[in-house]
């Protein structure tokens, strides 16, 4: 699996004896969109947090382009090229939309004016430009989700981690977000790893899917394979009523 952009090798995380994640391995090639799915409490966000530097794995390693990034602090992980969104959105509430994104853009730019220019162009792409002078706390939920994505993109990541950015969106809004992510991936070759419960989005976006349950990987494959996988149907997707 060498040459993968992101590689998780046997990572595990134990919280005071509670095994949240155990021996999970998977790899995401550069330029791919990969989904991480599973029931609530399966450990998906814990896996994200180990990639993004919030938690240090108690076992295994995370590598980005061959460089070990597990054990770094979140800001160092960001340096290394990991951008992330939060499941429960965390906008800088008291600042304007533009300032929110500008702070992300400052990561690769020292000058405020340059960062602001970069932020403006990201806002245009995400359709938030009209609202750039609004305070982030006044945004609607779909816009806050877009703000999360925009702020992560502003740090110019190699790998974008999206934690349930579709949750709470209406189907038409999901389609807009899916279209945006697909376009972004096609244009810039950005590698994306997403946690998602909206299967419609997973099916439309992901080339590969990893399924976790009770902290362990139970399946991996294309969306079509996963949707036929017995174990996945049992623990997560469910069965259709027999006719």
């Amino acid at each position, binding site marked *: 699996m060498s040459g993968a952009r992101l590689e998780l090798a046997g990572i595990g995380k134990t919280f005071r004896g509670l095994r949240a994640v155990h021996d999970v391995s998977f790899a995401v090639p550069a330029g791919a969109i990969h989904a991480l799915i599973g029931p609530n409490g399966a450990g998906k966000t814990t896996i994200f947090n180990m990639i993004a530097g919030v938690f240090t794995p108690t076992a295994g390693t995370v590598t980005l382009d061959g460089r070990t990034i597990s054990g770094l602090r979140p800001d160092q992980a960001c340096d290394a090229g990991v951008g992330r969104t939060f499941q429960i959105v965390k906008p800088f509430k008291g600042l304007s939309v533009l300032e929110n994104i500008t702070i992300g853009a400052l990561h690769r730019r020292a000058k*405020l004016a340059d960062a602001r220019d970069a932020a403006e162009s990201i806002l245009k792409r995400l359709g938030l430009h009209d609202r750039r002078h609004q305070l982030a706390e006044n945004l609607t939920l779909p816009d806050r989700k877009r703000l999360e994505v925009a702020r992560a993109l502003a740090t110019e990541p190699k790998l974008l981690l999206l934690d349930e950015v579709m949750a709470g969106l209406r189907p038409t809004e999901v389609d807009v977000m899916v279209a945006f992510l697909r376009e972004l991936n096609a244009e810039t070759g950005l590698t994306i790893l997403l946690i998602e419960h909206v299967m419609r989005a997973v099916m439309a976006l992901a080339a590969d899917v990893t399924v976790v349950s009770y902290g362990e990987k139970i399946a991996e494959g294309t969306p079509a394979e996963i949707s036929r996988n017995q174990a996945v149907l049992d623990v997560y997707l469910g069965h259709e009523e027999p006719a």
Partner: protein
Amino acid sequence: MSRRAIVTLAVLAVLLLAAPKLLGGYALSVLILVLYFAYVGQAWNIMMGFAGQLSLGHALYAGLGGYIAAGLYTHYGIGPWAGVFAAVAAAVAAGSIVGYLGFRFSLAGVYFALLTIAFAEFTRIGFDNWPWAGGSGGMFLKVERNVSDLANLRGGSEMFYYLILAMAAGILVLCRWLLESRLGRYWLAIREDAEAAQAVGVPVFRCKMAAVTISAALTALAGVWNAFYYNNLFPETAFAMGRSIEITLSPIIGGLGTLFGPIVGAVVLTGLGEIFTSASDQFHLPGLKQIFYGLALMLIVMYRPAGIWPWLARHLGFEERPK
């Protein structure tokens, strides 16, 4: 800033420069106090208003700065312009210790505030028992009448007025510059949400340390000025909790995190506070000023939680509308 704001600022600057010629001794001493509180409020605002870290022990940095510079002058004849470097260094060291303990172990909010109070108290007790600093009996600078010795800061109120005016103007420019820098924006991000800030690459610990050390250094300068202006220092007052609280009031009332909030807050609080002090003397009603401070704080928290300045700026047309 709008044009209107710039014109107002220019007029104010001229009036302030001419103030010693226009005002009597008492009015000038009130204006000196206003500028002093504007200055220390500005320094404290860097930590709380910008970076969101509540310090309730800023008297520590002012007291340390004042004691060090005054001690070097009285014991060794080292003038304040040289002594100030030692004063700033001591405050930065103290700030680093408080900051390191607080931020390394992720003490947040009131717990961090308790730590800052504890350090100011430790220091007060230490100075109470330190013979070099005069112990609880205090330290006194020799008062010389009718001299104007800028090199040793021996002189009348006019000299101290211009000095604190320059400091207040300087810190305003510095704070504006800081706020428009990457560090300043990182502070705002930390204030709003430290976890999200770190996720977009903000080195949170380092930025918080920068906030506490810069704020401590600037506060120490005010301490030096204060020591040479009043010529006496006592641990009981220099490191007092009340002194620390006083420092926080102007920015809270004027507008946390704003550039002009600490100035407006200082004008309102000190200006009106002086009126109440004289009223309290005249009518033999002790404590009027304290009651007024408490009331002012309550009214602000209830009706203008963002402070007076943002509201004032809007109503006077000082804000530049975003395009």
